[in-house]
């Protein structure tokens, strides 16, 4: 099933690109590029990526999310990639995750309502956070089933640009803390993640990104802390079909959380600008190989971002 979904998603990518193929558009509004023309263009016809100072204006399109697909199967946004540039935004989202392990007589459907946001001190630095405002779990084994719904975990973190090269390359350092806000257990889970994000504008329509991190989580309370260390590697490409729509395809590798090799999981995100700074992202991630039991994860995020 997961393979079918992935195939369908991949097959739809070129179709989307063709359908929304923009005219041979002019490019940047204010910054000259190799094929720019001096004549200004109205905002609605702005190119998807526009270069500016600090490199972070590159690729900035109001309302259009950017960077890696923010979808994984851990607490809040742990184990997801981050973008390289700071932005100020606020959003709500939901994330669905399914484990359907028939031979193991186990099933778990998880649904989280997310609140997330970030504040950019500058194009180079942002603080961000994600709260699982409501985390719902349905669990079934061969004979028993049950549900639980509580406040979930909160993460807070920061990203800071540390390196820039050429006109389109940025490397940022990022870190986040996971705070023990979840009420589903007497054991409170805390964690931290440090990593680096990379992005590179290949052309006005195509941008590459990458992310690598190490995360540590552990329990607080009466029970053993059971610390877990994970390593996350992400690489992907984002293709901007037009200023109001883009698609991103990521590959994610994760190690150490569940086994030495957790998973290789491609993720697909479809991003759209709805109105001004209001953007929407629909995403899916499908672990294909490895010890990860999640069959699929789906996400829908709606965010407003300051222009």
């Amino acid at each position, binding site marked *: 099933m997961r393979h079918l979904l992935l195939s369908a998603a991949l097959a739809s990518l070129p179709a989307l690109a063709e359908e929304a193929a923009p005219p041979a558009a002019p490019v940047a509004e204010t910054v000259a590029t190799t094929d720019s023309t001096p004549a200004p263009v109205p905002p609605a016809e702005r190119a998807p990526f526009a270069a500016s100072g600090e490199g972070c204006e590159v690729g900035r399109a109001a309302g259009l999310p950017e960077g890696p697909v923010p979808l994984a199967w851990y607490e809040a946004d742990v184990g997801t990639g981050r973008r390289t540039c700071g932005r100020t935004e606020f959003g709500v989202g939901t994330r669905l995750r399914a484990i359907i392990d028939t031979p193991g007589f*186990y099933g*778990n459907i*998880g649904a989280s309502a997310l609140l997330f946001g970030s504040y950019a001190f500058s194009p180079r630095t942002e603080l961000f956070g994600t709260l699982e405002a409501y985390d719902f779990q349905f669990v079934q084994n061969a004979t028993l089933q049950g549900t639980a719904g509580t406040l979930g975990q909160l993460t807070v973190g920061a990203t800071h640009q540390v390196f820039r090269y050429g006109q389109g390359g940025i490397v940022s350092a990022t870190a986040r803390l996971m705070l023990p806000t979840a009420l589903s257990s*007497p*054991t409170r889970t*805390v964690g931290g993640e*440090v990593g680096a994000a990379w992005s590179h504008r290949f052309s006005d329509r195509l941008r590459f990104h990458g992310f690598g991190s190490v995360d540590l989580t552990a329990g607080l309370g009466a*029970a053993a802390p*059971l610390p877990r260390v994970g390593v996350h590697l992400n690489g992907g490409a984002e293709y901007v079909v037009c200023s109001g729509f883009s698609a991103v395809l990521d590959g994610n590798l994760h190690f150490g959380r569940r086994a030495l090799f957790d998973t290789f999981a491609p993720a697909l995100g479809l991003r759209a600008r709805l109105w001004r700074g209001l953007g929407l992202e629909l995403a899916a991630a499908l672990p294909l190989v490895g010890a990860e039991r999640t069959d699929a994860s789906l996400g829908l995020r709606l965010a407003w971002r300051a222009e």
Partner: protein
Amino acid sequence: MRHTWMVAALALVGAAVAGCSKGEGCLGDAAGCRVETPCKSLSWTCEGGSLELKVLAREDEARPGLDALSSAGDVQIGNDQVVAVIAAIGNQNFLDPNGGGLLDLYNRGKDNDSINQVLTVTGILPGDSVRYTKLEILDERPARVAVQVSGTLDGRPDHKVYTRYEVRPCEPGIRIRTEIVNGAPDNAMWALSDGFYWSKREPLPFTPGEGVGFNHPSFNLLTINGAYRTAPFLASTPVTDPAASYALVACNQQVIEGFQSDVVSTGGLVRTVVPPRGYQVYERFLGVAAGRDAAAGASLAQEVRGKLFGEKTVVLSGKVEAPASLAGSGFRTSVLVLEGTAETPAEKRVPWSQAVPGEDGAFRVRVPAGKPWVVEVHHFGKKSVERVFDAVNADADLGTFTLPATAKVRLEVSDTLSGAWLDSEVFLVAADDATRTGAAGTFHGQMGSCSPWLGPPPGASPACNRVLVRSGVAEFEAPLGKFHLYAFKGPFWTLARRTETFTPAGGTYAFRLRELAVQPQGTITADLHVHGAASFDSSLPDRDRVLSFAATDLDVAVATDHDVVYDYSTVVAELGLQQKLSTVTGVETTAHIPWFKIPGSDFPLVIGHYNFWPLAYQPWLPRNGGPYDEQLEPGELFDRADTLYTSSVPVVQLNHPWAEAEFGRDLGFPRALGLNALQDLPAKDDGTVGGMYVRARGKNANNAHHAQEVMNGTENDLLPAYRAFWFYTLSQGQLSTGTANSDSHGLVDNTVGVPRNVVFADTAPGTGFEVDRLNEGIRAGRVLGTNGPVITAELSDKDGTFRPYGFTPVQPGSGSALRLKVSAAPWVPVEEIRVVVNGAVTKTFSGADLQRPGDAFGWEGLVRFDREIPLSELALPAGRDAWVVVEAGAPLPVVGDVGGGFSSETVPHGTKDGIPDTADNDGDGAVTEKDVATGAKVGPMRPPPPPQDEAHPQFHFSQVVTGGYPFAFTNPFILDADGNGRFDAPGAESK
């Protein structure tokens, strides 16, 4: 330096992890940890309290109750009130993967252990039980003694479990605390509970609840989640003496949650989704009280709740008077106490207790204070008296309850010829509709209905509608009415009947029985599959079990209790039967833990049941010396048994090969595999289920059993399936002796010795009995299986010499013939004789071919058929080897193969497998989809309903061979028609 804040953040996380874990009990999994003492707010005081703690040794071989299982190495903790036994690590029993469970719990000095085992579980899957790997003894006297066991959920090392069993002085039970941590990265669904393995015909669970008490919602493995209910406590009621009642109360939760059935009960924490790193702690008090009722446990439970939660209770007492009653009420009188008023509908009343009055008729129950009560007195399985009481706020005497009149009955049974008193069994059958209705009863709706209901069906005599007669005499109390009384002493004796009206005046009724000359010379009768109280699913005391052997005139009974070797010889001697009755020590291995899978299915299976004998009875060993039988293929199990036999000629018997699974556990290996009897077996493992059936992982192959059941149980409902499978294996050249056994667990479920095996063996019952001779006869196929008819058959070879049936090939000649004689007691109708060749009936004798006796209760007209039949009339395959079986009795029921074979997601409706799965349930003479029960894929395989018309030839037979129909079969003649000196099996297509 710019990343200093990141490092600081990680350091903060580390510090939090290190500094904030409190490490309560053993949740932190620290080396040397100690689980905290459970139920801290609970206390008892007494004078002279004491404590005991010891590791059992070989010499501690006492059996403190019908369900006692303790063996050397187990740990016994106790006080002045109770004794508990915790299984040593590695002492595996039943559902417990590796020891560490609670095996025995009884009142000191009462020897009334009535639990098979109590296990800590998180559900009912194999992986929901705990595999303990470490046991620590905690001697903290004088305050307490305890045992701490630790391990993980079975096969799930991420889920660590610690359990502490603790006994303090003066306390009427054991404190238990379990700690479990979800160390896996996934959410877990847990119902952390105590699992009570009652296993049918044993104590019944009782929980207060609207319309509940003993009446719990039915469920199967797929609907069990909906059967969970909460209750303030769980109690149990026994069905036989020496009796104990148990009480389970949670200490760290106001209620217990669980499902209840007569097979398995659970009580514990409310089902919970436990996230990764989450944990659960379950503290409870498990009490035991001597008593024949739930009241003993329920009163204790409410005493505990009073101490824990401050609940107020009152004691209701009263007296039951039964005119003309024999001393004591036995289990036939029961007082049910329900919260409610006269206006409260029955389904809304809350049963809080159930009491069996004592010898003087007095009863006492503890119930919550301030509630109105309805008190029902049940007598002989029926509600006889109901009285209502307003809210009771203080202890109260409810007065006297007077029961309707009954009859004192005395039975006398003697030998017609010698006048000697006989051990026998008397069946009571209602003789008119008014009596049938008026005398019908149940145990509060449980354990089946009987008319008359003389006592709990699983228990001692009188049970249901039957009474054991010892040395010619039995006395019992019965409801009034008109009854047929059948005196029965097995299928080779006459049957006597009287029709009497029981009045308050009572009466004495005499019967005379006579042994009939139907059993062939040189044979011995044997039931190779019987159970008693040693089995986890039997409550029949040893005395009644052995007496039942004598009552049906069995020569040999092989003790095949579930998973425990047992020896009845001591009781045989106590009853003075050792000169005419022999018992053999054996075991029925009963796999409990599903593990293996067949191609195309994700469901784990067990290998079913096998009998092994003779084995040494060694009560100081786990399973009394029986083989470990979990997670082994049959051949591997046979290898283990090979080291345990006490004879060079042992027998392994495949039991009920095609029985339906119970509670997700297969009862027969062939059906577990889903063998297809339309396909030939491969010579070796080819990756198919057929390959699994024949493969060997060690010395023995999985199909290396010597015998397999063709008849199992008195009702014989699955005979067509067992018969078809046996025929299939014979056609595959797997020469396994067909046997006929009762599989009796009590006096009612099946009548011991019906059916039975008539074995040609050069030995006799009594002190000179040689089990090797019996086994040689069995292994050679020299066995007739029967519940009444007796077939004598010989076949002449090419030289004209008549040969017996069995596995020695016979080379027939052109003039060969089958010499066939069928005899039976006059009450056993023989309506048809069939000759089966390679699985197909090729010759039938019926109607005028057969003789019929004039008087079913006489002793003449035994021979029904005596003729020599040329082989040329049997449609043997020309020039090819064949096997021939002879059957006699009633016509076979109309059955068919609707498609009960292997099913899976890709084969949802099941394949036809050559094994009958459905009877002609609509009576239209054909088996079609219309016969299948609603919601089922196939079945049921009900036998024909017993005749109601006394003129029916099977009427009397069906009163004492309950639910059955006459049937007998020989083992096969093996015809080496091509004369090559061996049997060339005809294969599946031959039929």
